[in-house]
């Protein structure tokens, strides 16, 4: 505890002290490249999109007409939007919770010394390497409902019935979420591993001397000190989950029916496919707002938790 206390005091002292002008200029200068990139690559295009959302831009005709908020009205009255929204939320929350719950213990185990540790770590991380589009196609093949499907052929050999993993609404949703978890757990475990390095080993030694079990050590030392990492990881998972596209698209194409349809898919279908770019832009703007509100609330919440623990 003493280390953290000292650091906090030092930080407080730093805040209290007025930084010299050299400090300030350097700080602003260092911030400049990132700010420029942000404005040019994010704000400007977003503004452009917002402008288009107020027009009947078709993506092929460079001279659109202004139509006000008509696009937004159309979207809010479309029933299939609701289906996409529900699943997107389910996927985002589901993967965030499951991945966090799995990645932290995994990171702890990967931090220990055992034979074949490098191999294990690489295998867990592997799904993060190929593009999601390729993995979606591969998994679609693996989850074939036929008896000859990869998973099903194992089940059949064990004497069980084959399952239509992607053929019913509920199972398809579960399958997409499971593949999503499979794909990202290793990645986040590696992230947590880096943060585990910053927890000094002395804490554990002291705790062990005091007679703490490994469970107590985990919940009393590891978890609280990992909260900064959790803030970041869950934020990334939520935003990534809400923006998911490649995986459901290549795995189930949004089906069966609309059960695994995502908002991004709507944007692509109306924008690319239909050329109704004005409408797609409106959807994208609404979506950005929604993701923003959701993610920032979640971030604020986790930050509160973090403050409690530090």
């Amino acid at each position, binding site marked *: 505890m003493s280390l953290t206390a000292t650091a906090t005091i030092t930080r407080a002292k730093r805040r209290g002290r007025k930084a010299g002008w050299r400090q300030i200029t350097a700080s602003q200068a260092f911030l400049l490249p990132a700010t420029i990139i942000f404005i040019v690559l994010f704000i400007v295009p977003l503004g452009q999109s917002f402008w288009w959302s107020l027009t009947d831009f*078709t*993506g*092929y*005709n*460079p001279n659109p007409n202004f139509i006000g908020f008509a696009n937004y009205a*159309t979207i809010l*009255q*479309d029933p*299939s939007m609701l289906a996409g929204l529900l699943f997107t939320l389910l996927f985002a929350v589901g993967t965030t919770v499951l991945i966090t719950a799995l990645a932290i213990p995994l990171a702890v185990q990967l931090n220990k010394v055992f034979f074949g540790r490098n191999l294990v770590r690489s295998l867990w991380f592997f799904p993060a390497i190929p593009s999601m589009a390729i993995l979606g196609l591969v998994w*679609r*093949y693996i*989850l*074939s*409902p*036929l*008896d*000859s*499907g990869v998973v099903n052929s194992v089940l059949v050999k064990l004497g069980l019935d084959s399952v*239509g*993993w*992607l*053929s*019913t*609404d509920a199972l*398809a949703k579960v399958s997409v979420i499971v593949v999503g978890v499979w794909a990202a757990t290793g990645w986040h475990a590696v992230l947590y591993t880096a943060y585990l390095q910053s927890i000094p080993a002395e804490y554990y030694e002291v705790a062990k001397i005091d007679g703490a079990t490994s469970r107590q050590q985990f919940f009393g030392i590891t978890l609280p000190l990992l909260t900064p990492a959790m803030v970041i990881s869950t934020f990334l998972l939520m935003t990534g989950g809400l923006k998911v596209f490649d995986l459901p698209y290549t795995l*189930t*194409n*949004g*089906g*069966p*029916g*609309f059960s695994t*349809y995502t908002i991004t898919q709507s944007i*692509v*279908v*109306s924008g*690319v*496919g*239909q*050329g109704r770019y004005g409408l797609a832009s409106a959807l994208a703007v609404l979506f950005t707002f929604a993701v923003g509100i959701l993610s920032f609330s979640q971030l604020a919440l986790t930050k509160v938790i973090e403050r409690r623990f530090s």
Partner: protein
Amino acid sequence: MNKRPLLAAAALLAAVPLALSGCSSSDDGADGKTTITFLSWTGEEQMTPILDAFSKAHPEIKVDVSYSPPVAEYIQTLQTQVLSGIAPDVFLVAAENKTNLIEGGHMLDLSGEDFVKNVEPFNMNTYGRDGAQYGLSLSSWAAGYAYNEDLLAEVGATGIPETWDEFLDLCEKLQDAGITPFLESVDQMPTTLSAMIGAKSHSMDPTLDDLIFSGESTFEAEWTGALTEYNKLYTEGLVSPDVVALDGDMVRDEFAAGRVAIINAGPWIINPVKEAAPDLNWSFGKIPAIDGGEPFVAGAASPGYAINSASDEAHQEAAKVFLSWLASPEGVETFQAQTGDVTVTSDFEPPVDPVFTTMGESIRNGELYLPMISWQRSEDVLNVEAVAQIQRMIQGQSTPQEVAQALDAKLAAS
């Protein structure tokens, strides 16, 4: 931290782009050649020999080709290029972007040109509107049923029946004999349904879609019958609802392995199946008829080559030479040899694999149908809706009538 390795790396990186940048501009050279730009949908493997043959025939024109894989990526890439004013001189118009390109006036009208005269009118009109023709479509694809002759022989059948009721009976017989009768990949518009609607539309004038899209009729009125017939496969327990999770490759593999008697298939399965199961006795057949109609097939004209209306006249002329060669017997033959497509020009008879003969005739006569290409607007949105609703129907979550009603609602809202 030692900065030197970092600087060295940076210097090396700076040198690399110089080495890598090849010639990029497609401006005309001083050697009198005209260069036209072309975004190809057919892959590099197959396109290169075709382009080489063209260069030999017309050395005065150079084709600067780039590639984008079909379908969604190609459409997206082309769209962004069109929007930024850098669309190539020659590109492909497909079902997905047909309406947008036509309405944006981005393509030249080819209807008066010499080189379209020998092309099957069905193909030219597919990528046209109100008499104008924008895409030179040289081949078509068709999909029907592929059937395993031996498995059918086990229940005493010799081919695909001509009527739908007989087909359902055949499936039942196969099922009783312990054979999986039929599998269809429903990750896209089912082949069966396309053919059924097509058969109906073929006998109508004005066509079914003319009526629906002008408001004189509805999807409910025109589609419910076919949907109900199609749904019998599932309501009578002949096919498992799991087909909603199957794609064309999976279905093909089951067929090649001899585990299913009949599947929906197109010419693209011929080579893989022959390679995987050289001893399999099989053939193609048309989809059986409903309501006293005729057996029909699903299919559409392949994407058409279009000329950019924004290019200058010299480039447009050169592009026309390119298209004219593509449509010539020599061009068509080269194209056919590379892609194996069934081409539709009257002055060249493409070799057709024996198993595919009946389908080949349908193609050359333009007796094909695909809802998405035939629809006159909002094709993508309607297609996504249709596939999703049909999947729900197969799962038993809605009725055929509700599916058709959903399509009407979607059309009205778009």
